[in-house]
């Protein structure tokens, strides 16, 4: 059954994708964003090759060393190499961002399609649920969940999913409602297509593109949630490095050894800028109104 659906991306002539890449590379902000994102992702993936220091090894004799040749970004209050901790913290931040965003995209799309295409009462019920979840401040939600499950990466992922799903679901729902009375959906229905088939073949390809771009612009928010929760001690458990916990380590001694807080803060700023620039450029590049040229 599923092989009957040909992949819309594969059917597209390659020149389309190439044109998009070329247009992306023509935008200075896009190039900057792409560079920053690639730097951060590369640093996280090749962390073990880029530094020989173990990010969790405590070395009391080398506490609070300033940046230098041996420790590029200096060491923290336990003598751990900050460069290694930043790179490994990037792993945590990016994997949480990708996993959580992926999960909430899948859940959000499914809920949105059901709400948009299903019966009216179900739609109303789901909108009520989305709004209730959204009305919780993120920190309160995080605190409540950590009280239940204890601080861990899983808790971070659950918080992120809970916080972002309602937004994705609402977007998909609105698009689905707009499309479900379109001529081609009516035509498909009159040719005997089941609701599942209409959603999968006709509505999903129409709504997924903009949502993925939106989600890529949400990645900094997700990284912010992870760093924030780790900063508060609700996220990653020590000694696993996270940008948030590095910030927290530096925060206590910010007057004497500011480089610790800087080492934790700079990557958050750079990754946020990178994904925002990239996402915005991608949005413009794929804007159908600009496609005509």
């Amino acid at each position, binding site marked *: *059954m599923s*092989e*009957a*659906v*040909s992949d*819309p991306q594969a*059917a*597209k*002539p390659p020149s389309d994708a190439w044109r998009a890449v070329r247009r992306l590379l023509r935008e200075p902000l896009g190039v900057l964003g792409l560079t920053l994102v690639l730097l951060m992702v590369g640093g996280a993936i090749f962390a073990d090759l880029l530094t020989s220091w173990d990010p969790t090894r405590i070395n009391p004799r080398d506490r609070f060393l300033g940046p230098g040749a041996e420790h590029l970004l200096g060491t923290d209050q336990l003598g751990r190499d900050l460069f290694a901790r930043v790179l490994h913290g990037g792993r945590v931040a990016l994997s949480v961002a990708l996993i959580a965003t992926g999960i909430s995209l899948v859940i959000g799309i499914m809920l949105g399609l059901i709400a948009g295409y299903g019966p009216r009462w179900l739609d109303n019920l789901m909108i009520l649920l989305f709004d209730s979840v959204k009305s919780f401040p993120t920190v309160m939600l995080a605190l409540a969940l950590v009280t239940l499950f204890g601080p861990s990466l899983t808790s971070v992922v659950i918080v992120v999913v809970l916080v972002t799903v309602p937004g994705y679901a609402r977007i998909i729902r609105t698009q689905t409602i707009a499309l479900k009375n*379109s*001529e*081609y959906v*009516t*035509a498909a*229905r*009159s*040719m*005997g*297509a*089941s609701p599942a*088939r209409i959603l999968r*073949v*006709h509505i999903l*390809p*129409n709504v997924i*593109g903009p949502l993925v771009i939106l989600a890529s612009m949400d990645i900094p928010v997700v990284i912010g949630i992870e760093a924030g929760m780790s900063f508060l001690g609700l996220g990653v458990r020590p000694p696993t490095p996270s940008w948030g916990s590095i910030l927290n380590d530096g925060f206590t001694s910010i007057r004497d050894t500011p480089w610790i807080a800087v080492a934790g803060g700079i990557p958050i700023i750079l990754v946020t800028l990178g994904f925002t620039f990239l996402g915005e450029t991608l949005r413009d590049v794929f804007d159908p109104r600009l496609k005509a040229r």
Partner: protein
Amino acid sequence: MTVLSISNLNVVFSTEDGPLHALKDVSFDVPANRIVGIVGESGCGKSTLINAILGLLADNGHIDGGAIRFEGDTDLTTLGPDAMRDLRGPRIATVFQDPMGALNPVLSVGAQMVNIQYRSGRSKAEKRARAVEMLEQVRIPDAAAAIKRYPHEFSGGMKQRIAIAMALMMEPALLIADEPTTALDATLEVATIEMLKDLQQKIGCSILFISHHLGVIAELCDDVVVMYAGEVVERGTTRAIFNDPRHPYTARLLECDPARQTERTRNLPTIPGEIPDLRARPPGCIFANRCHRREDVCARPPPDIQIGGGHAARCHLADMPEMEVAP
């Protein structure tokens, strides 16, 4: 054999102001291998009829008596949603009015044509070959390359032909064409009509062709059903309807056809009056309030008077041909 046989079909919509009888006592047949035209002005129940046949009436509408028999014995009014869904597509296909919206803009034409064959059990290569073959049949130039293109790369006429190709891909027994040429210009209209006739001959299906263009109906159809305010007022062969209309509405409708005007005139002729409120149908003839031949008997429900050869009219006066009115 009769492909579709509708008998005494009633469709009622529940509205805030009470029940609305959209279709009342509709009966006609679509014989095998024939093209049946349905003609009538806007709001006469053409679309309701299609949706009733397809089992896709709006939530507030329901079938209130009558039968829709498909291919002999299956009564579509009693089929469940799943059984109905299995019929739509492979056995009953539909083409709609607007060619611009009928194709999904984000999928290539080929992807959509392959996709629609999901029930055929063919391999992907066979499906693609079938799609190319159908595009060739509807005279899309360079069909092998055309299946890779997207709907916006085709003209309106081409899109409508692609939609027809998709509808006929599974060789249905019945094609319902809902004003498929209305959105096309006159030249394309003729070409599409001819193509439709060719394909109908080739596939051997029946077509239920809805239009308000009398010229197209006369050109294409074997039989004609004239609808007015949710009732079939007259039905018969195209020749009988056009040459010997027995219902005053049919006669007036034909007189109003711009193609029949022989003199220059500022104002095209119209039928005075309006369609009655379908929530409060008059007890007698539905057309009485606009009829130029109205008599006292018209206050009573008119019978379906058989004129012969399948020609019938729902009018008390159908047996008495209209006298030529002196100018």
